[in-house]
């Protein structure tokens, strides 16, 4: 009898080209997504060594990080450094024959939104991208992880990576999620529990009733923030929800190939008795809408909670870090999170910019108005998400409520395009990182779900969305 294997083990084993003496594997990569920020040096390296892109057809390029999300993007990017980075990618994909989705293509969007949306990301695949949120694609039952620029060059040149196998970790979320709670609250609760280094060295498999009950957008939200828990990859076993999502997408297998793929995909879930190096269990019923109060994602509490008091922290190093976070965030120890006024609301990013996220925001915004003095942006994850939202009339609901309805891109997640916070501004954000200066120097970020973000927009403060629906 063969040893029971995890989902990760199975995908890993199926992609090992060769094992080197110290256990490092030459791992075959099925899909390589690239964008403008982390590739210029990789292409330069190829040029310097006289190398080609080994499998251009397994590669797809898109621009997302630098692009403005207003109409100025169609008349030429004003910021010269951003324009140069976009032009450099365009020159490189042309020179190396890599398929590219340009800015004016309706399919353009955030790399981690368009991969699944186009059906490029599939169960059982190895998927990499020079971006840490590549973990998102693990929601399809793929092994997907972020890589640096040297590794981007390695994949371009060889279609493989040199990797050591990760350890297996399983996070099981039992039970049913309460009213007003979403996938974002699950993953923030997980990070709050295990910490930002809790998954270091591991691949996390998310399991349990509450995970199975999530739609694909929710699963992508959970896997997306695996890196915020320290894990390079997160994954969810493919099931009927996965297959229904994929079927008919442009790059999904068709006809006989679909049936064959389906038969393979059904063999992927972890075997009963498969060994995990670490197991964590949470009860979904115990999860409330979550909000971060500090400058890393483990500094998170339920919206019903209070800002922690550093005086109660026994470890001096942790106490100093807590105090530093409170100073940066402009929050008082022991203050309730609910009621904290916000200046800006950002609904978007590779974590929460899919049609389901926009529906959740619109459901709260419907018939309400963005509070006086608050700037609220909704940034769809792709041109196709934008189109669908407009077909459903969600753009109208949001615009009538006073939200800005933008073009697709990374936008205010990371402060490298025109959408950024001013120093001292406080933002309720559906993105993934609340690091100091992440949304712009001096900006203060509170991470939360799309429904909670919309609730903050219409009340002008952090608020428990469950109270608004009652």
């Amino acid at each position: 009898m063969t040893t029971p294997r995890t989902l990760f083990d199975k995908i890993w084993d199926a992609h090992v080209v060769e094992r080197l003496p110290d256990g490092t594997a030459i791992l075959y990569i099925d899909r390589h997504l690239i964008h403008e920020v982390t590739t210029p040096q990789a292409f330069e390296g190829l040029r310097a060594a006289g190398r080609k892109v080994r499998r251009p057809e397994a590669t797809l390029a898109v621009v997302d990080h630098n692009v403005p999300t207003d109409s100025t993007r169609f008349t030429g990017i004003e910021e010269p450094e951003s324009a140069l980075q976009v032009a450099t990618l365009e020159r490189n994909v042309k020179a190396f024959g890599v398929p590219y989705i340009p800015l004016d293509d309706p399919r353009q969007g955030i790399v981690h939104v368009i991969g699944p949306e186009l059906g490029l990301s599939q169960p059982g695949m190895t998927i990499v991208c020079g971006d840490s949120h590549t973990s998102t694609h693990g929601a399809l039952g793929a092994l997907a992880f972020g890589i640096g620029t040297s590794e981007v060059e390695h994949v371009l040149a060889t279609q493989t990576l040199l990797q050591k196998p990760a350890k297996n970790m399983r996070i099981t979320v039992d039970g049913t999620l309460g009213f007003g709670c979403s996938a974002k609250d699950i993953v923030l609760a997980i990070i709050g529990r295990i910490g930002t280094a809790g998954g270091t060295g591991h691949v996390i498999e998310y399991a349990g009733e509450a995970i199975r009950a999530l739609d694909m957008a929710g699963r992508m939200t959970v896997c997306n923030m695996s890196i915020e828990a320290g894990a390079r990859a997160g994954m969810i076993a493919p099931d009927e929800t996965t297959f229904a999502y994929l079927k008919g997408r442009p790059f999904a297998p068709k006809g006989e190939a679909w049936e064959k793929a389906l038969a393979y995909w059904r063999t992927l879930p972890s075997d009963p008795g498969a060994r995990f190096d670490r197991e964590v269990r949470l009860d979904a019923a115990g999860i409330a809408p979550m909000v971060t109060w500090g400058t890393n994602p483990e500094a998170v509490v339920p919206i019903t909670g209070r800002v922690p008091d550093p005086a109660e922290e026994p470890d001096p190093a942790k106490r100093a870090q807590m105090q530093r976070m409170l100073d940066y965030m402009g929050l008082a120890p022991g203050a309730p999170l609910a009621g904290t006024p916000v200046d800006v609301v950002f609904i978007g990013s590779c974590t929460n910019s899919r049609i389901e996220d926009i529906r959740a925001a619109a459901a709260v915004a419907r018939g309400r108005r963005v509070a006086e003095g608050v700037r609220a942006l909704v940034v769809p994850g792709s041109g196709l998400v934008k189109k669908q939202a407009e077909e459903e009339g969600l753009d109208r609901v949001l615009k009538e409520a006073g939200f800005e309805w933008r073009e697709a891109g990374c936008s205010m997640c990371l402060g490298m395009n025109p959408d950024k916070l001013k120093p001292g501004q406080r933002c309720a954000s559906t993105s993934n990182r609340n690091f100091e200066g992440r949304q712009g120097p001096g900006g203060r970020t509170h991470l939360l779900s799309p429904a909670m973000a919309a609730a903050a927009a219409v009340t002008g403060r952090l608020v428990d969305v469950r109270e608004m629906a009652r």
Partner: protein
Amino acid sequence: MEPITRFEGLAAPLALDNVDTDQIIPARFLRKPRDADYQRWLFHDLRFAPDGSPLPGFVLNRPPFDAATILVAGRNFGVGSSREAAVYALQAFGIRAVIAESFGDIHYSNALKNGLLPIRLPPERVRALREAAEGGGLRLTVDLERCVVASPDGAEDPFAVPAFARDCLLRGLDEIGLTLTHLPEIEAFEARHAV
């Protein structure tokens, strides 16, 4: 890449946990060319006031630490984004090794690929080295052949580096070139692995 075997340098203490790559180099500088000014983006928002003046409180702005080549940090260094620019910025400043209790996985791997040594040591040793570095006179020797960090008092801290990566660094090997020597195996794999 130049082979790395052994080097000696001044250690600077950075008593912060969870230093994320957005702190090491904020995203807005990811568009900057890797020229002579690149070191300026390292820890930019911690090192410089909004008007561009250096903040005297930040360790790397204070002599002799402005000439440090070894950084002694805390727990979970380089967490967050996959930006290899975090490694480029550290190297542009002159940093050749970072000693910490733990590292973000992607940053750890990026550092090794560029010959910036990420050295994991036990918490009590990291703390001891950081405290010893505070006076500004701690010169450490990093020996990759023996995998030890040697202190002037004779103490030696062993550290682990993945054998393959270590071999590449010691010999200055090009990993892509090395992988391409396995091209027949890659082609054979592709022939049986239909996607």
